[in-house]
Protein backbone atom coordinates (compact mmCIF):
# COMPACT_ATOMS: atom_id res chain seq x y z
CA UNK A 1 0.00 0.00 0.00
CA UNK A 2 1.18 3.53 -0.78
CA UNK A 3 0.99 6.41 1.65
CA UNK A 4 -1.50 8.25 -0.54
CA UNK A 5 -3.80 5.23 -0.57
CA UNK A 6 -3.73 5.16 3.22
CA UNK A 7 -4.47 8.90 3.33
CA UNK A 8 -7.50 8.28 1.11
CA UNK A 9 -8.75 5.39 3.23
CA UNK A 10 -8.22 7.19 6.52
CA UNK A 11 -10.11 10.26 5.26
CA UNK A 12 -12.96 8.17 3.88
CA UNK A 13 -13.25 6.24 7.12
CA UNK A 14 -13.27 9.40 9.22
CA UNK A 15 -15.87 11.03 6.96
CA UNK A 16 -18.13 7.98 7.11
CA UNK A 17 -18.26 8.18 10.90
CA UNK A 18 -19.82 11.66 10.92
CA UNK A 19 -23.50 12.26 11.50
CA UNK A 20 -25.37 15.33 10.33
CA UNK A 21 -25.13 18.76 11.92
CA UNK A 22 -26.87 19.25 15.24
CA UNK A 23 -29.97 21.34 15.81
CA UNK A 24 -31.56 23.78 13.41
CA UNK A 25 -28.63 24.66 11.20
CA UNK A 26 -30.78 26.57 8.70
CA UNK A 27 -32.26 28.68 11.49
CA UNK A 28 -28.83 29.51 12.83
CA UNK A 29 -27.54 30.39 9.39
CA UNK A 30 -30.47 32.65 8.50
CA UNK A 31 -30.32 34.37 11.86
CA UNK A 32 -26.58 34.88 11.41
CA UNK A 33 -27.28 36.31 7.97
CA UNK A 34 -29.75 38.86 9.35
CA UNK A 35 -27.22 39.90 11.95
CA UNK A 36 -24.53 40.20 9.37
CA UNK A 37 -26.73 42.38 7.19
CA UNK A 38 -27.41 44.66 10.13
CA UNK A 39 -23.71 45.11 10.64
CA UNK A 40 -23.12 45.64 6.97
CA UNK A 41 -25.71 48.40 6.95
CA UNK A 42 -23.78 50.14 9.69
CA UNK A 43 -20.62 49.62 7.69
CA UNK A 44 -22.34 50.76 4.51
CA UNK A 45 -22.39 54.24 5.95
CA UNK A 46 -18.68 54.13 5.25
CA UNK A 47 -19.08 52.65 1.81
CA UNK A 48 -17.40 49.49 2.99
CA UNK A 49 -18.55 45.92 3.10
CA UNK A 50 -16.57 44.03 5.65
CA UNK A 51 -16.74 40.40 6.51
CA UNK A 52 -18.28 39.82 9.91
CA UNK A 53 -17.88 36.78 12.03
CA UNK A 54 -21.00 34.82 12.75
CA UNK A 55 -22.81 34.95 16.03
CA UNK A 56 -20.80 37.65 17.68
CA UNK A 57 -23.70 39.89 18.59
CA UNK A 58 -26.51 39.05 20.93
CA UNK A 59 -29.37 41.09 19.59
CA UNK A 60 -32.89 39.82 19.22
CA UNK A 61 -34.37 41.09 15.99
CA UNK A 62 -37.01 38.54 15.21
CA UNK A 63 -37.89 34.90 15.06
CA UNK A 64 -34.92 32.65 15.02
CA UNK A 65 -32.42 35.13 16.35
CA UNK A 66 -32.48 33.56 19.75
CA UNK A 67 -30.71 30.62 18.13
CA UNK A 68 -28.11 32.77 16.46
CA UNK A 69 -25.12 31.65 18.41
CA UNK A 70 -21.87 30.12 17.25
CA UNK A 71 -22.23 26.50 16.20
CA UNK A 72 -20.01 25.45 19.05
CA UNK A 73 -19.79 26.89 22.55
CA UNK A 74 -17.90 30.03 23.55
CA UNK A 75 -15.70 31.82 21.05
CA UNK A 76 -11.98 31.26 21.26
CA UNK A 77 -11.39 34.85 22.37
CA UNK A 78 -14.33 34.81 24.78
CA UNK A 79 -12.58 36.82 27.47
CA UNK A 80 -9.77 39.23 26.64
CA UNK A 81 -8.63 40.67 29.93
CA UNK A 82 -5.72 42.85 30.99
CA UNK A 83 -5.94 42.86 34.78
CA UNK A 84 -2.55 44.57 34.95
CA UNK A 85 -3.69 47.68 33.06
CA UNK A 86 -5.22 50.44 35.18
CA UNK A 87 -5.59 52.53 32.03
CA UNK A 88 -6.40 50.15 29.16
CA UNK A 89 -3.77 49.88 26.49
CA UNK A 90 -4.90 46.67 24.80
CA UNK A 91 -8.31 45.50 23.61
CA UNK A 92 -10.65 44.35 26.36
CA UNK A 93 -13.65 42.15 25.63
CA UNK A 94 -15.92 39.52 27.13
CA UNK A 95 -18.55 37.42 25.41
CA UNK A 96 -20.45 39.47 22.88
CA UNK A 97 -19.24 42.89 23.96
CA UNK A 98 -15.95 44.64 23.52
CA UNK A 99 -14.59 47.90 24.83
CA UNK A 100 -14.55 50.08 21.72
CA UNK A 101 -12.77 52.82 23.61
CA UNK A 102 -13.03 54.97 26.69
CA UNK A 103 -13.57 58.58 27.54
CA UNK A 104 -12.21 60.88 30.20
CA UNK A 105 -14.05 64.03 31.18
CA UNK A 106 -12.91 67.25 32.80
CA UNK A 107 -14.59 70.49 33.80
CA UNK A 108 -13.11 73.55 32.16
CA UNK A 109 -14.07 76.91 33.74
CA UNK A 110 -14.90 79.53 31.14
CA UNK A 111 -14.06 83.21 31.27
CA UNK A 112 -17.71 84.22 31.61
CA UNK A 113 -18.29 82.04 34.64
CA UNK A 114 -19.72 79.11 32.69
CA UNK A 115 -18.28 75.65 33.20
CA UNK A 116 -17.78 73.34 30.26
CA UNK A 117 -17.55 69.56 30.54
CA UNK A 118 -15.07 68.34 27.92
CA UNK A 119 -14.61 64.69 26.98
CA UNK A 120 -11.43 63.20 25.61
CA UNK A 121 -11.84 59.95 23.72
CA UNK A 122 -9.49 57.02 23.28
CA UNK A 123 -10.54 54.57 20.56
CA UNK A 124 -9.53 51.05 19.63
CA UNK A 125 -7.25 50.92 16.62
CA UNK A 126 -8.63 47.83 14.78
CA UNK A 127 -5.23 47.12 13.26
CA UNK A 128 -3.05 47.25 16.37
CA UNK A 129 -5.89 46.40 18.80
CA UNK A 130 -4.61 49.12 21.09
CA UNK A 131 -6.36 52.22 22.38
CA UNK A 132 -5.24 55.52 20.91
CA UNK A 133 -6.24 59.08 21.62
CA UNK A 134 -8.88 60.29 19.20
CA UNK A 135 -8.79 63.65 17.47
CA UNK A 136 -9.55 66.35 20.06
CA UNK A 137 -12.07 67.98 17.72
CA UNK A 138 -14.60 65.22 18.43
CA UNK A 139 -16.89 66.34 21.19
CA UNK A 140 -19.00 63.18 21.03
CA UNK A 141 -18.25 59.70 19.72
CA UNK A 142 -20.66 56.76 19.53
CA UNK A 143 -19.19 53.52 18.23
CA UNK A 144 -21.53 51.27 16.23
CA UNK A 145 -22.06 47.57 16.96
CA UNK A 146 -19.23 45.75 15.24
CA UNK A 147 -16.75 48.49 16.15
CA UNK A 148 -15.95 49.54 12.60
CA UNK A 149 -17.89 52.78 12.42
CA UNK A 150 -18.45 55.62 14.83
CA UNK A 151 -20.85 58.53 14.69
CA UNK A 152 -19.09 61.74 15.69
CA UNK A 153 -20.02 65.31 16.58
CA UNK A 154 -17.45 68.08 16.35
CA UNK A 155 -16.79 71.40 18.00
CA UNK A 156 -18.85 72.77 20.83
CA UNK A 157 -22.20 71.08 21.05
CA UNK A 158 -24.87 71.09 19.81
CA UNK A 159 -23.45 70.24 16.38
CA UNK A 160 -25.00 70.96 13.01
CA UNK A 161 -23.81 67.74 11.37
CA UNK A 162 -23.06 64.11 12.23
CA UNK A 163 -19.96 62.44 10.84
CA UNK A 164 -19.54 58.76 10.02
CA UNK A 165 -16.02 57.91 11.07
CA UNK A 166 -14.21 54.89 9.62
CA UNK A 167 -12.32 53.57 12.61
CA UNK A 168 -9.72 51.87 10.44
CA UNK A 169 -8.71 54.99 8.54
CA UNK A 170 -9.75 57.68 11.01
CA UNK A 171 -11.51 59.48 8.14
CA UNK A 172 -15.07 60.76 8.02
CA UNK A 173 -16.68 59.17 5.00
CA UNK A 174 -20.04 60.91 5.19
CA UNK A 175 -21.58 63.92 6.83
CA UNK A 176 -25.27 63.90 7.72
CA UNK A 177 -27.00 67.22 8.35
CA UNK A 178 -30.13 66.53 10.37
CA UNK A 179 -31.50 70.09 10.18
CA UNK A 180 -31.49 70.47 13.96
CA UNK A 181 -28.47 70.91 16.19
CA UNK A 182 -27.76 67.75 18.14
CA UNK A 183 -25.61 67.00 21.17
CA UNK A 184 -25.89 63.21 21.35
CA UNK A 185 -26.12 60.30 18.95
CA UNK A 186 -26.69 56.68 19.88
CA UNK A 187 -26.80 53.55 17.72
CA UNK A 188 -29.76 51.18 17.70
CA UNK A 189 -28.89 47.68 18.97
CA UNK A 190 -28.82 46.32 15.40
CA UNK A 191 -26.63 49.16 14.09
CA UNK A 192 -29.19 50.21 11.48
CA UNK A 193 -30.29 53.49 13.00
CA UNK A 194 -29.11 56.42 15.03
CA UNK A 195 -31.15 58.45 17.44
CA UNK A 196 -29.88 62.03 17.66
CA UNK A 197 -31.00 64.23 20.55
CA UNK A 198 -31.47 67.88 19.66
CA UNK A 199 -30.72 70.75 22.04
CA UNK A 200 -30.76 74.52 21.74
CA UNK A 201 -27.71 74.94 24.01
CA UNK A 202 -24.77 72.79 24.92
CA UNK A 203 -26.00 70.39 27.61
CA UNK A 204 -22.39 69.96 28.73
CA UNK A 205 -22.08 73.68 29.50
CA UNK A 206 -23.31 74.79 32.89
CA UNK A 207 -24.34 78.38 32.55
CA UNK A 208 -23.44 81.13 35.00
CA UNK A 209 -26.59 82.51 36.59
CA UNK A 210 -26.54 85.60 38.78
CA UNK A 211 -27.19 84.68 42.37
CA UNK A 212 -27.76 86.87 45.36
CA UNK A 213 -25.76 90.06 45.02
CA UNK A 214 -22.96 89.75 42.46
CA UNK A 215 -22.19 86.04 42.95
CA UNK A 216 -22.62 83.78 39.93
CA UNK A 217 -22.42 80.05 39.74
CA UNK A 218 -22.80 77.66 36.81
CA UNK A 219 -26.08 75.77 36.70
CA UNK A 220 -27.84 73.16 34.66
CA UNK A 221 -30.42 74.25 32.14
CA UNK A 222 -33.01 72.50 30.03
CA UNK A 223 -32.68 73.11 26.30
CA UNK A 224 -33.54 69.74 24.76
CA UNK A 225 -36.00 70.16 21.95
CA UNK A 226 -36.54 66.62 20.64
CA UNK A 227 -34.95 63.89 18.61
CA UNK A 228 -34.50 62.50 15.12
CA UNK A 229 -34.07 58.96 13.82
CA UNK A 230 -31.48 58.50 11.09
CA UNK A 231 -31.02 55.48 8.81
CA UNK A 232 -27.31 54.71 9.04
CA UNK A 233 -27.05 53.01 5.66
CA UNK A 234 -28.69 55.73 3.56
CA UNK A 235 -28.19 58.75 5.80
CA UNK A 236 -31.94 59.43 5.57
CA UNK A 237 -33.11 61.68 8.39
CA UNK A 238 -36.59 61.06 9.74
CA UNK A 239 -38.98 63.74 10.91
CA UNK A 240 -38.14 65.81 13.97
CA UNK A 241 -39.91 64.63 17.13
CA UNK A 242 -40.69 67.18 19.77
CA UNK A 243 -39.67 66.09 23.30
CA UNK A 244 -38.77 69.20 25.30
CA UNK A 245 -37.41 69.20 28.82
CA UNK A 246 -39.41 70.67 31.70
CA UNK A 247 -39.32 74.43 32.05
CA UNK A 248 -37.72 76.11 35.07
CA UNK A 249 -39.92 76.54 38.13
CA UNK A 250 -41.15 79.86 39.43
CA UNK A 251 -37.81 80.43 41.12
CA UNK A 252 -35.99 79.92 37.81
CA UNK A 253 -34.62 76.56 38.98
CA UNK A 254 -34.38 73.78 36.41
CA UNK A 255 -35.46 70.41 37.83
CA UNK A 256 -32.81 67.96 36.71
CA UNK A 257 -29.67 67.98 34.64
CA UNK A 258 -28.99 69.56 31.29
CA UNK A 259 -28.11 66.39 29.43
CA UNK A 260 -31.07 64.07 29.13
CA UNK A 261 -30.52 62.18 25.91
CA UNK A 262 -32.93 59.88 24.11
CA UNK A 263 -31.92 56.22 24.11
CA UNK A 264 -32.99 53.05 22.34
CA UNK A 265 -34.50 50.30 24.46
CA UNK A 266 -33.41 46.67 24.63
CA UNK A 267 -34.57 45.69 21.14
CA UNK A 268 -34.63 49.08 19.42
CA UNK A 269 -38.43 49.20 19.14
CA UNK A 270 -38.95 52.06 21.61
CA UNK A 271 -37.09 55.04 22.99
CA UNK A 272 -36.69 56.35 26.48
CA UNK A 273 -35.26 59.20 28.50
CA UNK A 274 -33.68 58.31 31.81
CA UNK A 275 -34.96 60.28 34.77
CA UNK A 276 -32.89 60.57 37.90
CA UNK A 277 -34.18 59.41 41.25
CA UNK A 278 -35.66 62.32 43.15
CA UNK A 279 -38.23 63.14 45.78
CA UNK A 280 -38.24 59.60 47.11
CA UNK A 281 -38.81 58.05 43.72
CA UNK A 282 -36.31 55.61 42.22
CA UNK A 283 -34.83 56.43 38.85
CA UNK A 284 -37.25 55.64 36.06
CA UNK A 285 -37.68 56.05 32.34
CA UNK A 286 -40.03 58.13 30.21
CA UNK A 287 -41.00 56.07 27.18
CA UNK A 288 -41.64 57.10 23.57
CA UNK A 289 -42.59 55.32 20.39
CA UNK A 290 -40.30 55.58 17.38
CA UNK A 291 -42.88 58.01 16.00
CA UNK A 292 -42.42 60.38 18.90
CA UNK A 293 -45.54 59.81 20.97
CA UNK A 294 -45.38 59.01 24.68
CA UNK A 295 -46.03 55.38 25.47
CA UNK A 296 -45.84 52.91 28.31
CA UNK A 297 -42.85 50.80 29.17
CA UNK A 298 -42.52 47.44 27.40
CA UNK A 299 -43.66 44.68 29.75
CA UNK A 300 -40.14 43.35 30.11
CA UNK A 301 -38.63 46.77 30.81
CA UNK A 302 -41.18 48.37 33.12
CA UNK A 303 -38.85 47.88 36.08
CA UNK A 304 -35.78 49.09 34.20
CA UNK A 305 -34.12 52.00 35.90
CA UNK A 306 -30.74 53.57 35.71
CA UNK A 307 -28.45 50.61 34.87
CA UNK A 308 -27.44 50.76 31.26
CA UNK A 309 -27.15 46.97 30.99
CA UNK A 310 -30.91 46.60 31.44
CA UNK A 311 -32.50 43.45 30.12
CA UNK A 312 -30.43 40.36 29.34
CA UNK A 313 -30.33 39.39 25.65
CA UNK A 314 -32.85 36.59 26.12
CA UNK A 315 -35.03 38.71 28.41
CA UNK A 316 -34.63 36.47 31.45
CA UNK A 317 -32.93 38.93 33.78
CA UNK A 318 -32.96 42.62 34.51
CA UNK A 319 -29.76 44.13 35.88
CA UNK A 320 -30.11 46.57 38.74
CA UNK A 321 -27.38 48.70 40.20
CA UNK A 322 -26.31 48.24 43.77
CA UNK A 323 -23.20 49.24 45.61
CA UNK A 324 -19.91 47.94 46.94
CA UNK A 325 -21.66 44.96 48.47
CA UNK A 326 -23.17 43.78 45.22
CA UNK A 327 -26.26 44.31 43.13
CA UNK A 328 -29.61 42.67 42.52
CA UNK A 329 -30.58 40.79 39.41
CA UNK A 330 -34.36 40.93 39.00
CA UNK A 331 -37.19 39.17 37.30
CA UNK A 332 -38.03 41.72 34.58
CA UNK A 333 -41.78 41.20 34.88
CA UNK A 334 -42.20 41.28 38.64
CA UNK A 335 -39.17 43.31 39.69
CA UNK A 336 -38.41 40.71 42.34
CA UNK A 337 -34.78 39.95 43.09
CA UNK A 338 -33.82 36.53 41.75
CA UNK A 339 -30.05 36.68 42.21
CA UNK A 340 -27.17 38.92 43.21
CA UNK A 341 -23.91 39.70 41.47
CA UNK A 342 -20.74 40.89 43.21
CA UNK A 343 -20.50 44.18 41.30
CA UNK A 344 -21.78 47.69 41.80
CA UNK A 345 -22.57 49.10 38.36
CA UNK A 346 -23.77 46.90 35.52
CA UNK A 347 -22.70 48.18 32.11
CA UNK A 348 -23.55 45.55 29.47
CA UNK A 349 -24.61 41.94 29.13
CA UNK A 350 -21.81 39.79 27.69
CA UNK A 351 -24.37 37.02 27.08
CA UNK A 352 -27.53 35.74 28.71
CA UNK A 353 -25.91 35.16 32.10
CA UNK A 354 -22.77 37.29 32.23
CA UNK A 355 -22.39 41.00 32.78
CA UNK A 356 -19.55 43.42 32.21
CA UNK A 357 -19.63 45.64 35.26
CA UNK A 358 -17.66 47.85 37.60
CA UNK A 359 -16.78 46.36 40.95
CA UNK A 360 -14.67 47.67 43.76
CA UNK A 361 -11.29 46.19 44.52
CA UNK A 362 -12.01 43.26 46.85
CA UNK A 363 -8.78 43.92 48.75
CA UNK A 364 -10.05 47.35 49.69
CA UNK A 365 -13.76 46.81 49.32
CA UNK A 366 -14.97 47.64 52.81
CA UNK A 367 -18.40 48.75 51.80
CA UNK A 368 -17.41 52.37 51.31
CA UNK A 369 -14.70 52.41 48.69
CA UNK A 370 -16.99 51.82 45.75
CA UNK A 371 -15.33 54.34 43.47
CA UNK A 372 -12.03 52.51 43.58
CA UNK A 373 -13.23 49.97 41.07
CA UNK A 374 -12.22 47.94 38.07
CA UNK A 375 -13.91 46.50 35.01
CA UNK A 376 -14.99 42.93 35.68
CA UNK A 377 -17.03 40.08 34.29
CA UNK A 378 -19.61 38.62 36.66
CA UNK A 379 -22.03 35.75 36.23
CA UNK A 380 -25.60 35.50 37.51
CA UNK A 381 -25.63 32.82 40.17
CA UNK A 382 -21.91 33.03 40.90
CA UNK A 383 -19.88 34.99 43.41
CA UNK A 384 -16.84 34.89 41.21
CA UNK A 385 -15.54 37.98 39.42
CA UNK A 386 -13.16 37.93 36.50
CA UNK A 387 -11.11 41.16 36.40
CA UNK A 388 -10.93 42.62 32.91
CA UNK A 389 -8.70 45.54 33.92
CA UNK A 390 -6.82 46.72 36.98
CA UNK A 391 -8.45 49.22 39.32
CA UNK A 392 -9.23 52.27 37.19
CA UNK A 393 -6.90 55.23 37.47
CA UNK A 394 -6.74 58.52 35.62
CA UNK A 395 -4.77 58.51 32.37
CA UNK A 396 -1.62 60.59 32.42
CA UNK A 397 -2.48 64.26 32.22
CA UNK A 398 -6.03 63.77 33.45
CA UNK A 399 -7.59 63.97 36.86
CA UNK A 400 -10.56 61.64 36.44
CA UNK A 401 -10.68 57.95 35.76
CA UNK A 402 -11.72 56.61 32.39
CA UNK A 403 -15.27 55.58 31.44
CA UNK A 404 -15.55 52.47 29.26
CA UNK A 405 -17.42 52.53 25.94
CA UNK A 406 -18.89 49.07 25.44
CA UNK A 407 -20.57 47.81 22.31
CA UNK A 408 -21.31 44.56 20.49
CA UNK A 409 -18.19 43.24 18.87
Amino acid sequence: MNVDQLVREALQEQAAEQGGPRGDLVGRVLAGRRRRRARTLAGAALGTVAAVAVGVTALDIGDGDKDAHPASGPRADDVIAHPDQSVPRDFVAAGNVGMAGYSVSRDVPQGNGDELLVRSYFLLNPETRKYEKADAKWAWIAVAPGMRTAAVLEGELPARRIGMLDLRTGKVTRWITPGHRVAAVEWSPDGRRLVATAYRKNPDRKVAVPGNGSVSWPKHHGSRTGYLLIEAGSGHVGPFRDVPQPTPDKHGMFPGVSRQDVHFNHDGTRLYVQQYARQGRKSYRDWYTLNGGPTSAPAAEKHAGWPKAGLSPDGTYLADDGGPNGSAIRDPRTGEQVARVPSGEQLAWADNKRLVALACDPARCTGKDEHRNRLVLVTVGSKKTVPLTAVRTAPKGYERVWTPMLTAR
Partner: protein
Amino acid sequence: MDAESQDRFREFVESRSAALLRTAVLLTGGDRHAAEDLLQNALVKAAGRWNRIDDPEAYVRRILYRQQVNRWRLKWPRREVAVAEPPERAGADTAAGAELRVVMRAALARLTPRQRSVLVLRYFEDLPEADVARILGCSVGTVRSTTHRSLARLRSLAPELAVLGPAVAEAAPSSDISPVEVRP
Protein backbone atom coordinates in the same frame (compact mmCIF):
# COMPACT_ATOMS: atom_id res chain seq x y z
CA MET B 1 -33.92 36.47 0.61
CA ASP B 2 -37.58 36.01 -0.32
CA ALA B 3 -39.72 33.12 0.88
CA GLU B 4 -39.15 31.03 -2.24
CA SER B 5 -35.37 31.46 -2.08
CA GLN B 6 -35.45 30.66 1.60
CA ASP B 7 -37.28 27.41 0.86
CA ARG B 8 -34.69 26.46 -1.75
CA PHE B 9 -31.89 27.34 0.65
CA ARG B 10 -33.46 25.26 3.40
CA GLU B 11 -33.85 22.34 1.04
CA PHE B 12 -30.22 22.60 0.00
CA VAL B 13 -28.92 22.74 3.56
CA GLU B 14 -31.10 19.89 4.73
CA SER B 15 -30.08 17.65 1.85
CA ARG B 16 -26.36 18.52 1.65
CA SER B 17 -25.30 19.63 5.12
CA ALA B 18 -24.32 16.14 6.27
CA ALA B 19 -21.97 15.70 3.30
CA LEU B 20 -20.58 19.21 3.71
CA LEU B 21 -20.03 18.62 7.40
CA ARG B 22 -18.04 15.49 6.62
CA THR B 23 -15.67 17.54 4.51
CA ALA B 24 -15.49 20.23 7.20
CA VAL B 25 -14.58 17.64 9.82
CA LEU B 26 -11.72 16.43 7.63
CA LEU B 27 -10.52 19.98 7.08
CA THR B 28 -10.43 20.67 10.81
CA GLY B 29 -8.52 17.48 11.54
CA GLY B 30 -11.46 15.81 13.26
CA ASP B 31 -12.50 18.78 15.41
CA ARG B 32 -16.26 18.47 15.19
CA HIS B 33 -17.03 21.78 16.91
CA ALA B 34 -14.64 23.72 14.71
CA ALA B 35 -16.15 21.95 11.71
CA GLU B 36 -19.69 23.03 12.62
CA ASP B 37 -18.48 26.62 13.00
CA LEU B 38 -16.70 26.41 9.67
CA LEU B 39 -19.76 25.07 7.88
CA GLN B 40 -22.11 27.56 9.50
CA ASN B 41 -19.90 30.47 8.44
CA ALA B 42 -19.71 29.16 4.89
CA LEU B 43 -23.49 28.77 4.71
CA VAL B 44 -24.02 32.31 5.99
CA LYS B 45 -21.85 33.55 3.12
CA ALA B 46 -23.76 31.38 0.65
CA ALA B 47 -27.09 32.70 1.97
CA GLY B 48 -25.90 36.22 1.22
CA ARG B 49 -25.35 35.39 -2.46
CA TRP B 50 -27.98 32.73 -2.78
CA ASN B 51 -29.76 34.12 -5.83
CA ARG B 52 -26.47 34.62 -7.69
CA ILE B 53 -24.95 31.18 -7.13
CA ASP B 54 -25.20 28.68 -9.96
CA ASP B 55 -23.79 25.67 -8.14
CA PRO B 56 -24.43 26.02 -4.40
CA GLU B 57 -22.52 22.94 -3.32
CA ALA B 58 -19.39 23.87 -5.26
CA TYR B 59 -19.64 27.38 -3.88
CA VAL B 60 -19.97 26.25 -0.27
CA ARG B 61 -17.12 23.78 -0.64
CA ARG B 62 -14.88 26.47 -2.07
CA ILE B 63 -15.74 28.74 0.86
CA LEU B 64 -15.02 25.92 3.30
CA TYR B 65 -11.55 25.37 1.90
CA ARG B 66 -10.62 28.99 1.50
CA GLN B 67 -12.02 29.95 4.86
CA GLN B 68 -10.10 27.23 6.61
CA VAL B 69 -6.83 28.14 4.93
CA ASN B 70 -7.42 31.88 5.35
CA ARG B 71 -8.38 31.58 8.97
CA TRP B 72 -5.18 29.80 9.70
CA ARG B 73 -3.08 32.18 7.68
CA LEU B 74 -4.55 35.29 9.27
CA LYS B 75 -4.76 34.29 12.87
CA TRP B 76 -2.34 31.52 13.61
CA PRO B 77 0.63 31.77 11.29
CA ARG B 78 3.03 28.88 11.48
CA ARG B 79 0.97 27.16 14.13
CA GLU B 80 0.02 23.55 13.82
CA VAL B 81 -3.29 22.12 14.88
CA ALA B 82 -2.96 20.81 18.40
CA VAL B 83 -4.26 17.38 19.29
CA ALA B 84 -4.69 15.92 22.73
CA GLU B 85 -2.42 12.98 22.15
CA PRO B 86 0.52 12.45 19.81
CA PRO B 87 0.03 9.79 17.16
CA GLU B 88 0.07 6.43 18.83
CA ARG B 89 2.67 3.91 17.85
CA ALA B 90 0.99 0.94 16.30
CA GLY B 91 3.37 -1.59 17.78
CA ALA B 92 4.64 -4.70 16.11
CA ASP B 93 1.66 -5.39 13.91
CA THR B 94 1.88 -2.16 11.95
CA ALA B 95 0.78 -4.01 8.87
CA ALA B 96 -2.79 -4.10 10.13
CA GLY B 97 -4.74 -1.66 7.96
CA ALA B 98 -7.11 -0.49 10.69
CA GLU B 99 -4.27 0.42 13.00
CA LEU B 100 -2.45 2.23 10.25
CA ARG B 101 -5.55 4.27 9.52
CA VAL B 102 -5.74 5.27 13.18
CA VAL B 103 -2.13 6.35 13.03
CA MET B 104 -2.73 8.19 9.80
CA ARG B 105 -5.78 10.01 11.17
CA ALA B 106 -3.85 11.25 14.17
CA ALA B 107 -1.01 12.39 11.95
CA LEU B 108 -3.41 14.20 9.62
CA ALA B 109 -4.77 16.11 12.60
CA ARG B 110 -1.29 17.46 13.25
CA LEU B 111 -0.77 18.91 9.80
CA THR B 112 -1.35 22.59 9.18
CA PRO B 113 -4.82 23.42 7.82
CA ARG B 114 -3.22 24.31 4.50
CA GLN B 115 -1.48 20.97 4.20
CA ARG B 116 -4.57 19.08 5.29
CA SER B 117 -6.80 21.02 2.88
CA VAL B 118 -4.61 20.09 -0.06
CA LEU B 119 -4.64 16.40 0.92
CA VAL B 120 -8.43 16.39 1.42
CA LEU B 121 -8.92 17.94 -2.00
CA ARG B 122 -6.49 15.59 -3.69
CA TYR B 123 -7.30 12.30 -1.98
CA PHE B 124 -10.81 12.64 -0.53
CA GLU B 125 -12.40 14.79 -3.22
CA ASP B 126 -10.17 13.14 -5.84
CA LEU B 127 -9.64 16.39 -7.67
CA PRO B 128 -6.84 16.94 -10.17
CA GLU B 129 -4.10 19.40 -9.21
CA ALA B 130 -5.45 22.08 -11.54
CA ASP B 131 -8.85 22.03 -9.81
CA VAL B 132 -7.23 22.12 -6.37
CA ALA B 133 -5.20 25.12 -7.46
CA ARG B 134 -8.32 26.88 -8.75
CA ILE B 135 -10.25 26.26 -5.53
CA LEU B 136 -7.45 27.42 -3.28
CA GLY B 137 -6.46 30.28 -5.54
CA CYS B 138 -2.84 29.23 -5.98
CA SER B 139 -0.60 27.76 -8.66
CA VAL B 140 -0.49 24.11 -9.71
CA GLY B 141 3.16 24.08 -8.67
CA THR B 142 2.19 25.17 -5.18
CA VAL B 143 -0.38 22.39 -4.95
CA ARG B 144 2.25 19.87 -6.05
CA SER B 145 4.89 21.06 -3.62
CA THR B 146 2.42 21.32 -0.73
CA THR B 147 1.21 17.77 -1.41
CA HIS B 148 4.79 16.52 -1.40
CA ARG B 149 5.67 18.31 1.80
CA SER B 150 2.45 17.19 3.49
CA LEU B 151 3.12 13.53 2.75
CA ALA B 152 6.68 13.89 3.97
CA ARG B 153 5.38 15.54 7.11
CA LEU B 154 3.00 12.62 7.71
CA ARG B 155 5.93 10.24 7.54
CA SER B 156 7.92 12.26 10.01
CA LEU B 157 4.96 12.48 12.39
CA ALA B 158 4.27 8.76 12.22
CA PRO B 159 7.34 6.55 11.67
CA GLU B 160 4.97 3.58 11.43
CA LEU B 161 4.18 4.76 7.93
CA ALA B 162 7.69 3.77 6.86
CA VAL B 163 6.29 0.38 5.85
CA LEU B 164 4.31 2.07 3.10
CA GLY B 165 5.53 2.69 -0.39
CA PRO B 166 6.03 6.23 -1.69
CA ALA B 167 3.12 8.06 -3.19
CA VAL B 168 3.24 9.23 -6.76
CA ALA B 169 3.43 12.79 -5.53
CA GLU B 170 6.50 11.95 -3.49
CA ALA B 171 8.33 10.49 -6.41
CA ALA B 172 8.56 13.74 -8.34
CA PRO B 173 8.87 16.69 -5.98
CA SER B 174 8.32 20.05 -7.51
CA SER B 175 10.89 22.77 -7.36
CA ASP B 176 8.12 25.30 -6.89
CA ILE B 177 8.10 26.09 -3.22
CA SER B 178 6.34 29.41 -3.38
CA PRO B 179 3.93 30.03 -0.53
CA VAL B 180 0.26 29.35 -1.04
CA GLU B 181 -1.48 32.42 -2.27
CA VAL B 182 -5.10 32.52 -1.27
CA ARG B 183 -7.57 35.16 -2.25
CA PRO B 184 -10.64 35.53 -0.10
